[in-house]
């Protein structure tokens, strides 16, 4: 495995640089250990000419002495070589190879007159020189933190070497610089002055090192000037005005507004939309007090909006769009926002609008949603922009494959010392009790949250006391009495739905960290944690008497937290007096209700509240609509549906032991009691 990584790292170095570095290491070590005869390698023109030792033209450039500076030199060659090849030549290895060949030839010819024999320094300096020209404004730090612009870098190197060698002139280096400058001049400067390109890369090289001819690509070494030159030339030649009228055809746009109707984020995906379309929404919806639908169609333009905190998230379309998709998408944007900024409100949007644009760009292309998993997005859209560019470059290939792959939600290289998985079963009980005490509606919406801290790529299997599954297995039939009948369930995208459909096993490769594994719904045999008996009597027109009894229906070993009852009072309530047998009860005029809080509620106990509301006289005789009493609570280690986790098995190829934890909680969903 480690070997593979090494190979991958090696392979990730662009080809020409890779070849040069490898050859240098091989030849230099070979000479140092006397495996290769130095006599056969160095540059000797007489033998090239008379004995046809043509290889010397290449080998002399990749051999050097093994000493302290060898490592530095290798490092320089590697770094600047790959930067040149990747960035300046933008991956066109053929052009880079041509540069190397050209400079080597020039250096060799110079060497003939100077009598130089080992040319590695020349190759190195030519690479560095060209790099310094391409990145002339960059700041380079050298040796003991001396910082200067990159353009001086080759000269600093020459001076340094010269000092180290005892004031001798490093001719090889100067040769390298000269040859690189020749290339630079002929390739960029001279054509930029209007001359023809004298040294085009041979087409043979393009064939050998596959890269495509790029229309209009200009070598950037001279900064931006020559790019602009060509561009303006092109612009002058083209006199046709643009043809796109303001024809109104089909559109798709995405906006985020604040409550005042100011556009915070605006992204138009089809060209025919005007920005003023954003104002239409403001006028139609935000400043309209009576909006009775989340979808509004004006002419052929439909606006879809979702409100969140103090924002309007708006999508716009002009075709028969998938309405459900649009709303789901809006909510997904909110989720991604929350995951990035903690909170998705006006403040967060204003503070992070650049990042939001970046995210939107990734999430929605041409009006089509792409990838909206916050975890995946976080791999390559990061909040700190200062992240090393190098790292981005290496990872991005991996990230992109992952982001589009079949298990886009998980990285393969997750490692934990201790492998743990936490499962939280959270049930929300919805209840609607009629004034007569009949259950009109009772169901449980459950959520199974998982926090997986597992190494590698684990396959998990998850089992519940699901009635359908248990009844399938004849040996379990007896036990199935306490099984739960699940009406319907939904899974995180990591769960293999096909498998669940065929044999009701839940198997998946979990994402790293916290996620919602499944949601389920059941309406069968629900244990209501609380019973409420309200008696509310209107005495004449000025008084209402309350007598509310609450009883906890679960085992006395358990207890509920944060129990809150909201008992509505009429709008014209003047004042309320009430006493509760436990907890605190007080009248909150802003909510038009008596709020009764019981911090801790032991199982099987019961409490009562008695109170009296005094009403002011009202002119119109409209009856009080008696909104239902609503209730909030949390009960730990209790599930209303009786659902239990039977097992969680983790299979991984390393066969490690993992620790699993399960917690249960029941809380109030829509717990309403009419009276």
């Amino acid at each position: 495995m480690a070997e593979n990584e090494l190979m991958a790292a090696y392979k990730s170095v662009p080809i020409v640089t890779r070849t040069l570095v490898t050859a240098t290491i091989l030849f230099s070590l070979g000479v140092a250990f006397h495996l290769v005869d130095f006599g056969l390698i160095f540059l000797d023109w007489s033998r090239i000419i008379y004995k046809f030792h043509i290889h010397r033209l290449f080998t002399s450039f990749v051999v050097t002495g093994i000493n302290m500076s060898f490592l530095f030199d290798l490092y320089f060659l590697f770094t600047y070589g790959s930067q040149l090849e990747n960035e300046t030549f933008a991956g066109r290895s053929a052009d880079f190879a041509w540069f190397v060949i050209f400079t080597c030839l020039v250096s060799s010819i110079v060497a003939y007159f100077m009598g130089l024999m080992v040319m590695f320094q020349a190759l190195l300096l030519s690479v560095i020189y060209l790099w310094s020209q391409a990145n002339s404004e960059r700041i380079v730090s050298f040796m003991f933190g001396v910082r200067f612009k990159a353009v001086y870098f080759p000269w600093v190197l020459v001076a340094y070497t010269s000092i180290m060698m005892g004031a001798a002139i490093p001719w090889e280096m100067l040769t390298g610089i000269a040859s690189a400058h020749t290339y630079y001049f002929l390739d960029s400067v001279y054509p930029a002055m209007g001359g023809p390109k004298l040294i085009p890369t041979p087409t043979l090289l393009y064939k050998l090192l596959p890269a495509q001819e790029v229309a209009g690509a200009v070598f950037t070494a001279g900064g931006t000037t020559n790019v602009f030159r060509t561009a303006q030339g092109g612009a002058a030649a083209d006199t046709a005005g643009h043809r796109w009228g303001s024809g109104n055809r089909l559109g798709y746009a995405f906006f985020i507004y604040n409550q005042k109707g100011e556009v915070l984020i605006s992204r138009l995906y089809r060209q025919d939309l005007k920005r003023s379309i954003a104002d239409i929404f403001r006028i139609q919806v935000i400043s309209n007090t009576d909006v009775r639908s989340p979808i509004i169609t004006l002419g052929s333009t439909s606006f879809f909006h979702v409100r969140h905190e103090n924002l309007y998230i708006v999508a716009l379309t002009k075709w028969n769009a998938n309405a459900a998709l649009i709303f789901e998408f809006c909510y997904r944007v909110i989720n991604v926002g929350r995951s990035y900024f903690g909170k998705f409100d006006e403040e967060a949007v204003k503070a992070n609008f650049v990042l939001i644009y970046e995210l939107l760009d990734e999430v929605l292309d041409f009006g089509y949603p792409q990838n909206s998993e916050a975890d995946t997005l976080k791999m390559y859209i990061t909040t700190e922009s200062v992240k090393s560019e190098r790292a981005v470059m290496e990872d991005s290939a991996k990230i992109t494959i992952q982001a589009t792959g079949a298990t886009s939600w998980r990285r393969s290289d997750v490692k934990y010392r201790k492998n743990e998985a936490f499962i939280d079963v959270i049930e929300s009980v919805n209840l609607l009790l009629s004034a007569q005490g009949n259950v009109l509606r009772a169901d449980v919406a459950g959520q199974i949250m998982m926090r997986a801290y597992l190494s590698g790529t684990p396959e998990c299997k998850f089992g519940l006391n699901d009635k359908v599954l248990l009844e399938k297995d004849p040996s379990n039939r007896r036990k199935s009495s306490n099984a739960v009948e699940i009406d319907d369930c939904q899974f995180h995208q990591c769960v293999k739905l096909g498998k669940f459909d065929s044999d009701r096993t839940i198997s998946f490769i979990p994402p790293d960290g916290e996620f919602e594994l499944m949601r389920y719904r059941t309406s069968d045999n629900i244990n209501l944690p609380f019973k409420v008996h309200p008696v509310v009597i209107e005495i004449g027109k000025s008084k209402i008497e309350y007598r509310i009894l609450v009883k906890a229906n679960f085992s006395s070993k358990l207890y509920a937290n944060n129990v809150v009852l909201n008992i509505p009072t009429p709008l014209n309530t003047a004042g309320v007096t009430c006493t509760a047998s436990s907890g605190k009860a007080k009248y909150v005029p802003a909510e038009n209700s008596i709020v009764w809080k019981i911090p801790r509620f032991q199982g099987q106990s019961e409490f009562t509240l008695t109170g009296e509301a005094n009403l002011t006289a009202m002119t119109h005789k409209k009856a009080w609509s008696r909104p239902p009493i609503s209730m909030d609570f949390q009960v730990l280690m209790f599930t209303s549906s009786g659902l239990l986790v039977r097992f969680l098995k983790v299979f991984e190829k390393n066969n490690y032991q993992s620790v699993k934890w399960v917690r249960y909680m029941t809380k109030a969903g829509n717990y309403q009691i009419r009276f």
Partner: protein
Amino acid sequence: MADFIKQNATRFFANNKKGENAELLADLNSEYRDRRKDAVKRVIANMTVGKDVSSLFPQVVKNMQTEDLEMKKLVYLYLMNYAKSNPDLVILAVNTFVKDTDHVNPLIRALAIRTMGCIRVDKILDHICEPLRKCLQDDNPYVRKTAAIGVAKLWDLDQERALENGFVTTLQELVSDSNPMVVANAVTALAEMQESSTSKDIFIVNVAIMNKMLAALNECTEWGQIAILTSLADYKPLDSKEAENVCERVIPRLQHANGSVVLSAIRVIMIFLRYIKNEEFIKGLIKKMSPPLVTLLASAPEVQYVSLRNINLILQKRPDILQNDVRVFFCKYNDPPYVKREKLEIMIKLCNDKNIEQILSELKEYASEVDVEFVRKAVRAIGRCAIMIDEASERCVNVLLDLINTKVNYVVQEAIIVIKDIFRKYPKRYEAIIPTLCQNLDSLDEPEAKGSLIWIIGEYAERIENADELIENFLETFLEENSQVQLQLLTATVKLFLKKPAQSQEIVHRVLQTATNEIDNPDTRDRAYVYWRLLSTDPQAAKAVVLSDKPPISVQTRTISPALMDELINNISTLASVYHKPPKAFMGNRAFSADAVKKAAAADARDEEQIIGDAVLDTTSGAPAAKNTIADLLDLDFGSSEPAYTSPPVSSSKPASNNGPNYSADLFDMSSDMSGSGISVFGGMGGMGGMSGMSGMGMGMGMGGMQQQQQQAAAPARNDPFGDLGGLGGFGQPQQQQPTKPAQSSAENDLLGLF
């Protein structure tokens, strides 16, 4: 030309704001990277709030050539926004784009090709083909999937070029790509291209393609699954067996957490059900579809709304679904009004003699809520239950009586309207309650409620001892009444005369005289003449005509014709299914792409007006928004003539003025500006005309008249200075907002007729 003006305008605008833009300019040229980046960020911020920063184009683009990915993205964002206003300068950016599509970093390659596609200037087209071809063949799936959408972008601009370069074929090959996301995007792109294609068959789903899509279905993202499911729905299975197989493969999607995936899967299943002959299998499918539909009700309210509209549709097609789940549609107190309304509709659809008790007590509960519109709907729903289920009618009537006893004004009125229908359906069964109804005579102020009670009195005149007094009571205000009430009074009086000639000869004479002499409304006047002539020539014939048996009424639970139903099933989860209207009713022109629009002249604009006009009026039952559309659109138009409106060329070229004709010019201007809504303004007017005709106004209203009326409708809301103009037109009769009519309108139509 318009653009020329606009550019001048922007230059002018920029001069005004010289301070800030000059500062930005300096920063953009700064030698420090951080400073430049900061400047670009500020430029983007200004762009977002609508300030014009297009004058900085060259300076911003200069910063494009950078290794800083974030900076690059910012500049690209700017480019996408302003490329159109600076088409000549875009060429500056082309080099960097092309170079970036060769970058080693796949993210940058993808970014470049994505952005290039979004710069919708034709000059860039010359440069996009090569990079696009390269990217479509890229090793990296991320680049490929981005390029796939890129083809759709190119297609949108220039179909010829996309075809010539063979991109369509490449895209078709990408459908069999190894990466699921690439497949999904290729399918998305092809589907869009197919829809906007003028001639060629770009994307025909055949067996091979279907199998590839099904294979990718399990692995791609939720959005990709929707794309695939949508295209899958276009496939025509060869036989029942094949359709079954496809359904089998799609069923697991019903468990997806994303509601739109579930709905898309349901669409495929509903469509394929047509081909399946195996009854057992169909039953199984329907059983499997119910729970996910119920689960959708736990999602966000907006998704619930879409789901409920679709459930409504599915229920009409397959009434056997969800039969035992009526409880889940009970409204929660804090549901948004649009969700409540839809739940109510579905409750009625699911109503049967087993669950009627539950539903009734639920409806009664709703009738005590605060939201007036919802309360009215709840009361009407009770009436519909009574008419639908014979055995339950008595219970319904009792509930209605309870409601009448609450004395809440609008509840009482609504209940009386509903009881009138019950009387129609079950004649002579509930006469005992008539006295209770008559006690509420004084609280009625809505014409429909009044009309209903008068009809009841007329119909049962022989059983009501003081019928003549009651009628007399109403007749005091005969001339002030709404025409609907006048007509009812007229008929009721005649009925009374025919039943109790002795008591009412004088009354009938007086009424007919008043109606013929003092009322200008032709409907009322002519009806009075008809009665008079009938009574004077042959009282027996009059009896036969006026007191004949009424045709029975019934509640239609299926309001959609079979043909429309099929079309809507094909469009489950889309806007069409929300509105219960065919897509063409609200989409306008079918020609999608910029290319097509360029080529197609606006020849059939006339027909379109018609269609959209109808749609706007009709959607009242389906889309609550549409009801306000007329006023809304005007509202919008007021906006456009205000200087604050951010389309300076429009308002400056046509100064806003406060009189009628110019106003209409503005309207037209608007319609050229955003043709869709502009058109529906006129459609809406047609609708208004129809409505006013119904309530007694002449139909021969001119365009100008309507416009004035429109102004009147809009004026009070905005407290506009020319609100008083409406009064001048002679249409000063206040237009009462008719409560939306439920499906039983057949009954009301009868009432409006002679009988």
